[in-house]
């Protein structure tokens, strides 16, 4: 049984990111891989050791501050779980929180969880638009698409980028990188949401979650016609 954990589903529900949880669950179910969902709200207890895939999204400022406070209390346990190979997908605000800090426009540094080494600096204008990136999974290159909308500029400071930008702004509109990877933690600015249109990435996360449980299994191929068409539309627009 794969257990999926959706952190703060009723708070971090901007930009349709719950589609990532839907995609992960459905692609397990369609292959008859037993899967269940745990939703965790502010202050609710959670045993990260019992989780196989954790999703952390982004919210507007009010919500972001609330969850930052809540996550700080779970810092040690979450950090341990990450070191033990917990599979995580963190998007936008969730990505920023896993790093060292977020520096606001007036220079205030809001501490992050410091699970990863990156940091984020607020910019004046928002980086918004459709994005195409190239990602390498198990030695194979794939094109991934999504939509970015962030004021923060993230600098990796030694962390491995998730992908390289083909079109769009990415981490900081400067170094051509998008997202970050550390152990089994995948971070990205891409909404869209990212997983449904990019089944290669979804299946990669499912495989990692299974492997961590000691299950080595080739995933059954699925009919990804709609997925391909939806991705193709963005690619044809950008490239």
């Amino acid at each position, binding site marked *: 049984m794969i257990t999926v954990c959706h952190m703060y589903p009723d708070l971090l529900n901007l930009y349709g990111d719950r*589609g990532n949880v839907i995609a992960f669950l459905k692609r397990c179910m369609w292959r008859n891989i037993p899967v269940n969902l745990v939703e965790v709200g502010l202050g609710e207890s959670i045993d990260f050791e019992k989780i196989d895939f954790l999703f952390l999204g982004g919210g507007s400022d009010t919500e972001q501050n609330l969850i930052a406070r809540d996550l700080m209390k779970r810092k040690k346990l979450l950090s341990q779980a990450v070191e033990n190979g917990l599979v995580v997908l963190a998007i936008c605000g969730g990505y920023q929180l896993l790093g060292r800090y977020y520096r606001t426009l007036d220079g205030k540094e809001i501490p992050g969880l410091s699970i990863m080494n990156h940091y984020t600096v607020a910019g004046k204008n928002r980086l918004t638009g459709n994005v195409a990136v190239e990602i390498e999974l198990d030695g194979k290159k794939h094109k991934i698409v999504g939509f970015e909308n962030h004021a923060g500029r993230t600098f990796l400071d030694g962390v491995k980028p998730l992908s390289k930008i083909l079109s769009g702004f990415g981490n900081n509109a400067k170094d051509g990188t998008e997202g970050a990877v550390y152990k089994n933690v995948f971070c990205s600015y891409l909404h869209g949401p990212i997983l449904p249109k990019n089944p290669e990435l979804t299946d990669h996360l499912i495989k990692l979650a299974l492997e961590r449980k000691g299950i080595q299994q080739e995933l059954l191929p699925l009919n990804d016609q709609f997925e391909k068409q*939806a991705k193709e539309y963005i690619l044809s627009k950008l490239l």
Partner: protein
Amino acid sequence: MAVLFGKLVFRLSKMLGYKGSSLPGMVALKIYPGFLSQISKKLDRRIVLVTGTNGKTTTNNIIASIMRASGYKIVCNAEGANMINGIAAAFILAADFKGNLNHDYAVLEVDEASFPHVTKYLNPEFVVINNFFRDQLDRYGELDKTILFIKDAVKKLEDTVLIANADDPLVMRITAFSKHKTVYYGVLTKSEEQFVKAKETKEARFCPVCGSKLIYDFYHYSQLGDYKCEGCGFKRPDLDICALEVKLLDGGICSKVCDRIHKMEFEIKLNIKGFYNIYNALAACAFSRLKAIDVPIIQKALFEYKPVAGRLEVFYNDEKEILLNLVKNPTGFNEGIKTLGSIEKTKDVFIAINDNHADGIDISWLWDVDFEFLADRGDVLSFICSGKRSEEMALRLKYAGVPVEKIKIIKNMREAVAVVVNEKAKNAYLFATYTALWPVQRYLKAILKSSEKEQRACKMK
């Protein structure tokens, strides 16, 4: 001078085949930026502005028809041109060539993001604030900021009376701290017909005063309902104008309305579907009662109100009922899905999604809509996805659990409309984003017209 040029531009753009709803305003504002405050001075503050995320056009048009019925000559931006240029254009079209305005009142819907800009020029007698839902985020940044901007803009207004939806805690972020006289409307009790699913995307969950989580006695839909804060005691304010016993009828809504300012009650009936329209009607009732308009005039105008394009506009192809529903955000789409779900006949669903600037280029919000509700319903026979983002829509439906064989992608809108009109089901329900709405409506009318001709020809034989 600016007015004259604006009028010329309007004529020209009409001749070129445009609707001419914003361009004249843009030109006039370019020539003389102060013209809007000058022209509005002639009205001596006899202005009502309607803002909020959903229901602006409907509320504004209901107010306009009530005002007209009670003898006012009004300026109104009825076509939904609700940014500064559209509002300027409404005044230009109303004025004569010398720029004189022979009108009694201006009834204007204002885009949320444009509100602070518009109130720089206009100081209204009333402001109606209906609700806040997530809408076209890529254009506005985030909802919190939009609300903050409106709050700051309202603060600068003098002697304006606010007419506010008390059921929406997000609206309270503006009115709870305001020194302005505020008249609150809302739905007093939980209505039986409504159902609320825990999964639904809810916007506000926090107390506008202390930031603690709000506790709800009940939800009407999304974050609208009867709430209180356990932290500081803040709660939904007392309602001045409220609906009691809201009933959804086949093809409409009826309710008892209690006017607590004048201590009286009256019945209203609307011939438009969708529970959310009760809020638009209540806002109009509150405004009209404050203007001392007689109840029978209000009742008649509400009863006779016909929706504008895409606000659940009804068409018929022989026996088949076809509904057209504009969608802009998850809340509106979810309400549309509920309305669709309440229709007992079989239906085909058509969804046209565009990602032009006016629609919002980010369509991620489709994943916040509860299509799961339609996944295993046998009465929905097919889903036809159209528009620029038809593939993404099809993908969303697939992940909502809709059987893939029920989903068709027909990118060309004309073709897709023809298909849904001729499908087997007894009812067709059409959803369209903003820039898809007009083409869909046009194709639909053309198809219905030609099938009418065919039928007549058959009868002649």
